[in-house]
Structure formats: C-alpha cells, structure tokens
C-alpha cells in the first residue's frame, strides 16, 4: 500500500531486478516515518489543546510519569535495526560484492565528461582495447581508444546512447575524464559517482524493456535516461544519456550495426 502511495507521489516504476527490493525497503522506511510522525502529531495536537493556559492554569511540576516514551524509543531502535541489518547492509553487500561473472553479463565501460556519457562496448572479442588520455580527441576519439591495439579493433564506442539487453545482468565500469559526475537511472534504482582517476564497477539487471514500459506507463514518449546527479559544471542540467532496454536479438542487431558503422567510418566520429 505504501508503495502505491509513493508511486502516486512520483516514484517512477521499477525496471530492475534488485530495484524491487529497494522499493520494499523504501516502503518500509516510509511506514516507520509515517507512523512516528502521525503518532507524534496526534499527541502534540492533543497536548496543545489539553494543556493550554486557559484550560490548565496550574502546571504540573512532575509532568509525564509513564514510561511509554521509553517503549517508543526502544521500538524505533528495533525498527531501525531491522531495516539496517535485514535490508540495507545485505543489499549493499549484494550490490558491491555479488557481481555476476563477466561471461554471463553485458560488460561495458562508461566514461563521463562535461557533459556527455561515453559508452564503450568491448565488441565480439569481449576485451576492451587500450585507452590513453594522450590519444583523446574531442571530436574523433573522445575515449582515447588506441585503434592500433588488436583488442580495440572491434570495440564500439558511442555517446549518450546506452543500449542494453533485458533480463541479463549488466556490469558497468564507471569513470570520468574531468570532474565528478554521477550516473543514475531512476527506474533502475541505481546510482554511482563517476570519479576521475578511479574506475568503479556497478551491476544491475534490467527487467523491463523500453517498449514494455511504454505500454505500462501508457505513454509513447517514455524514455529511460541516464541522469547526472552530481554538479559537474554549467551543463550539468542537460547531461542526460538515453537508455534503450531491448530484447537480446534487438540488442545484437543494434550492436552489429554500430560495429559496421565504426568499421566504415574509420574513426569514432560516426555518431556526430
């Protein structure tokens, strides 16, 4: 029920496997908050009415004698402990330790820059080619990919267009070229800062394709987006990436097309 209320308020529909558990925790915490707030407010309003000066001209030196508040505090501690130990810590462990094996997953690199998301697929060989900051060229080679490296021959790069197959785990190695950005897809309940000098892996499993989501939300314009969540300069507000979740077949077809384009154009400027 709480989850329905949160969705009504604005919580976007969930579209990843672990996201369901995130939402359960979200609902749980909000229940705790609501119960405490309503309880306190009921008491508060009653007291303001009951103990106003005109009704109660003589204050009582002792005040409250019951131990009810102690029980409330103990209950709060117990509820917090359950949320913490039952949900939050195990879930975090799952997010940062229980990575799927690379062979079972779609593995990509994403390198953020002011104000775009560079997306790097390893290509059919499954190995990322060498990159070097010295090779970076803003228009022709934003990732600094060394095309002379044999592993880089079949690599596919792209700006702001992230395609992923549905129901297959995705591992993203996230980094940044310049300042700190933050990679988030609200429907996937995923977020991670992209920090220069560090490569941080994240993983999730998309469970609803873009087309299915269009039907579910009854909106043809539905669009998954990468939202930058960390202030990264004057273009922070428009640093949106576009995410397409599709069937494995559609994804493979798309990837082949991208590979062919990269071969024919000779550099990585095909997307311009």
């Amino acid at each position: 029920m709480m989850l329905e209320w949160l969705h009504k308020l604005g919580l976007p529909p969930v579209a990843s496997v672990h996201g369901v558990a995130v939402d359960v925790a979200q609902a749980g915490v909000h229940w705790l908050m609501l119960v405490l707030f309503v309880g306190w407010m009921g008491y508060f309003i009653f007291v303001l009415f009951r103990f106003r000066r005109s009704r109660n001209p003589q204050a009582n030196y002792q005040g409250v004698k019951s131990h009810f508040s102690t029980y409330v505090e103990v209950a709060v501690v117990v509820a917090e402990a359950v949320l913490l130990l039952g949900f939050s810590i195990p879930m975090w462990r799952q997010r940062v330790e229980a990575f799927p094996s690379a062979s079972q997953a779609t593995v990509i690199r994403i390198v953020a820059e002011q104000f775009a998301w560079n997306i790097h697929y390893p290509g059919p060989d499954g190995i990322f080619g060498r990159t070097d900051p010295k090779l970076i060229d803003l228009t022709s080679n934003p990732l600094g990919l060394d095309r002379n490296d044999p592993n880089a021959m079949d690599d596919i790069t792209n700006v702001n267009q992230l395609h992923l197959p549905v129901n297959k785990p995705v591992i993203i190695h996230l980094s940044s070229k310049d300042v700190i950005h933050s990679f988030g897809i609200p429907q996937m309940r995923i977020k991670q800062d992209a920090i220069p000098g560090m490569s941080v892996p994240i993983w999730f499993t998309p469970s609803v394709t873009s087309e299915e989501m269009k039907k579910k939300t009854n909106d043809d314009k539905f669009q998954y987006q990468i939202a930058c969540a960390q202030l990264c300069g004057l273009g922070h507000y428009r640093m949106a990436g576009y995410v397409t979740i599709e069937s494995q077949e559609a994804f493979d077809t798309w990837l082949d097309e991208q590979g062919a384009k990269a071969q024919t154009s000779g550099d990585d400027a095909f997307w311009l």
Partner: protein
Amino acid sequence: MSSGHHEHSEQQEHHAEPGFWQKYVFSTDHKVIGLQYGFTALCFLFFGFLLMLLMRWQLAFPGQALPVIGKFFSDSSMPGGIMLPEFYNSLGAMHGTIMVFLGVVPLAVGAFGNYVMPLQIGAVDMAFPKINMASYWAFFVGGVVMLVSFFVPGGAANSGWTSYPPLAELATTGQTLWLLGMVFLITSSLLGSVNFIVTIIQLRVKGLSFMRLPFFVWAQFVTAFLLLLAFPPLEAAGVLQLMDRLAGSSFFLPSGLVVSGQLMHNSGGGTPILWQHLFWFLAHPEVYVLILPALGIVAEIIANNTRKPLWGYKSMVYSLIFLGFMSFIVWAHHMFMTGMGTVINAFFQTTTMIISVPSVIVLSCLFLSLWGGSIRFNTPMLFALAFLPMFGIGGLTGLPLGLTTTDLHLHDTYYVIGHFHYVVAPGTIFALFAGIYYWFPKATGRKMNEVLGKLHFIGSFIFINGVFMPMFIQGLAGVSRRLFDGGASYYHAGPVLKLNVMMSVSAWCLALAQLPFIINFFYSMFAGEKVTSDNPWQSTTLEWATPTPPPHGNFTFTPEVVRGPYEYSVPGESSDFLPQYQPVKG
C-alpha cells in the same frame, strides 16, 4: 572567581567610559559583539534568501526573462534578464555558503551564544574579550571577501557549497576568493569556540554546577567542541585546494585528467575523494553546529512557556554529549555513492542509525515537556513549538537517506534538499526567530509586537512548507538537485515539474511574510512597548537577573545559584517560578 573576572574589573576601572568606536565598533563587550554578530548575520541571512528567490525564478520559468529586476544584472550573469547556467550555479553555491557560514552559524553561535551564554552563567564577560572581538572581525572580513567574489571575472564560486574538486579547481577566480573567505570564517569560528569552552568551564558563577546549567549553555558548550575539533581539517583542506589552484600542486587531482579534450599537465597523483573526506569531516558536525543551539533556544522557551521543568533534563544533556561525539563518525554517509565496500558502508550506515537515537530522545523530551504544562502561546513559543514537528520531519526524512539501500534512489535528489532544509530552515531558523522574540526585551528593554509577530509566524509556517514539502515528491521521482532548468531535460521529472511553480510562488510569499518581522524589529527597537520588569517572561535563568538592557559588566550584584535551571510551578510555592539566583527561604 577566575582571572577573567579580575582582568575585566581592572579594565573597567581604567576605562570607565569607552568612546564611540570602542563602545560600538571595536567593542570587547560580549553583548555588543553578540549584537554585531546578530545584525551582520541577519543581513547575510536575508541576502542568502534573496539569492534563492532569484534561483526560484529560473526553476519555475526556465529561460524566461526576469521582469523588472532582471534589467539590473550584468550581461555576464543575466543578459536580457535571462539567467545563465554559470550564474545559477554561483547563486546555488553562494546561497549554501552564506546561509550556513555567514547566516545561521553566526546567528546561532556568534549572536545568541555571545549575548546570552555569559549572562546565563553569571559571568561579567567572555573569558577572552579581545579574542572575542577578533572572532567577530575575522567573520566580518570573511563575509566581505565572499561578497566581493560576486564582482570578479567569472562571478562568485559556482561549484556548490561543497566545492568538490576537480570541478572547484577548474572554476573561475571566485573559487579562490571562496577559499580565502572560508579561511577567515573558520579562523573566526575557532577563536570563538576556544573562548566559549573556557568561559563555560571557568566563569560559571558560584553554585552553578554543570547539571544546573541551562540547556542552552550545554548546547553552546557541545557546539563549541564541534567547531574546535571539526573545523581544522577543513581549514587545512581549504589551504590545500588553494595550493592546487595557485601553486600547481595536485592534492586533489588525479593524473591524466582531460578537460574539454585537452590533457591537463598537472602533476597528478592526488584524489578528489580526499577532499570529500576532509570536507564532510567538518560538514557533518557542522550540521549539529546548526541544530544544537536551536535545540537550546527551544528548550529555554518551552520550559518558560509551559511553566514547568524540562522533562528528562539529564537524558537531554547526555544525549547532547553523545550526539556531539557521534557526529564525528557519520561523515561518510554523504559519500555513499562514491563506491564503498560493504564494511565501510555498513559502519557508516550503522553510526548514522545510532545517531538518530539521541536525536529522538532530545526531541521526545521536548515533546513530553509539554504534558502537564500551562502553555502560553506567545510569539516565541509559537516558533519554538513549530520547530518540533518541522525538525521532526527533517529528522525522519534522514532515515531513507541514511540507509544505503533506499539512498540508492534518493541520493543527490531533491529529497536531500527537502530533508536538510526542514532541519535548518523551518527547524533552526524558526528556533532563531523564537530566540529573537524571546530575548529582544532583554537586549532593548522593549517587547516586540505580538500581532505582527503572530502574522510573521503564520505566514512563515504556511509558505515554508509550501517551499519544502514538494521537494520530497520531486526527490521520490528521481529529480537530481542543482539542475539549472529544474529537471525539464528529463522524462522522469515530467509529472512533478509543475511543482516548481508552486514552490517558487511559496518562496516569494515567504519573503513577503518576513515583512511583518522586519517592520516589527525596527519599530519595536525604537517604539515598542517598554518592559516594566527585568524579567518580563517570569523566567528562572540568570540572564533575567540583570538590569535591562544589561550594562557593561552585566550584574549589579554577585549572583549565587542555589537550584536547577527550570524550577517552575514547584509544589507548595506561592510563585510559579523560582529563579536560580533567588536565595532559599529560611
């Protein structure tokens, strides 16, 4: 009495009548310094608020020219009245900086702490009056530097009040001035905190044991320790960032940075995360610097206006100390999304949940103190009462942010903005208003007008919720913070985008709701109803034992404390309050 007393009496003998400059400008009197802090901080608070009003125009009507006022801005900030994103970012960074470091802290600690605390402990002045003066002037210079930064090429700092590198290190000259300004502000706070600690330990009047201290003094005491221990790392970090910007070092810059397609030739080897640790090691305790004095003010006013002792005074004091301690080991919950392993993450989640316990205890005690009271609904009490549920909302909405699972969705969204504004704006700032209405008669000898006061309260209460409540909804929808167009670039923001107009209109109405306060403040100062007693609220604490307003040296007699701070409605007594300094009968 300690040496501070002697030193002061000597000074008084030698300089019986200080001249104008010494009396009102370069004064060493804690009350004058308190008022200087108060006026300056109120001006900055208002200025910081104006910055936000400008931002709210852009958020409600992105890309549209601001009518009338827009013409007064330069082409580098609002050409044709249309705001540039650089300027928006400057406004955001400076709103945060000014509200926290130049508004709320100086008002809560510099003004109320300086004015009220020495009176409440029966001291003639602070332990180090000249250091006190230096503290104010360092603050003043810091404020001037921050203001000047608006006029340098590129405008004021625009990398958020958190100034994360590398963004802050690539930013325009305004950032250098921000860092210099911060060095002055931090120095000011450090000077102040040492003074507060020594004063509270050394200058308490006879009989005023620690467990007889008014809760406000306890709050200032713990706050001073937080400032003393948390600020130095940021001062160091600020200097390191200055070195990075000016001297070519790379404390916070990794190797191989490529900015706008150009490889940067910095020496590298640094890490931006180091700055975040140093920054939040200050900035989390800083949250409690903002909130503890507010709790102190609210506790004083609630005890006074319920006419009964605070419920659970001792639990409140112990919770306060525990809060202060815990506030040093929760900082990395601001960094949950930087890529943490399970152990570190579990540690900071756990400490964050633990720190909610003493907060709940203090808040519960304040709520329970109302039970059995004889509640007077005057203006200070209305603000103090409103503080309780508002701070409650702020605290409760901290829970889903403190648990990493739920924070995954909410981190760096408007939910965060709603959360901390509930703590600081309708929380702390309401408490500060309560304090102004409450202690105004002591400082001026005149009461503030009740009708205008209540008008101010009702307007503020309604509209401040109109500003901040919708932020939780936008946050749930996943709208990131610090977006120049308020989220218009994003599909998921679509359904909640219209709330921006409502929030902005509320913000502008909130500004109008401050007019009764401003009028009341100046009117009452010169023409308000004169108080007929030195203790108009019939309070128990020592500040009301002084003449009104208190002269240089404060007390006309040497008070001795014989009982606890809140002996209201003691059974068998004819009066409903027994001041701490009133001798025991018989």
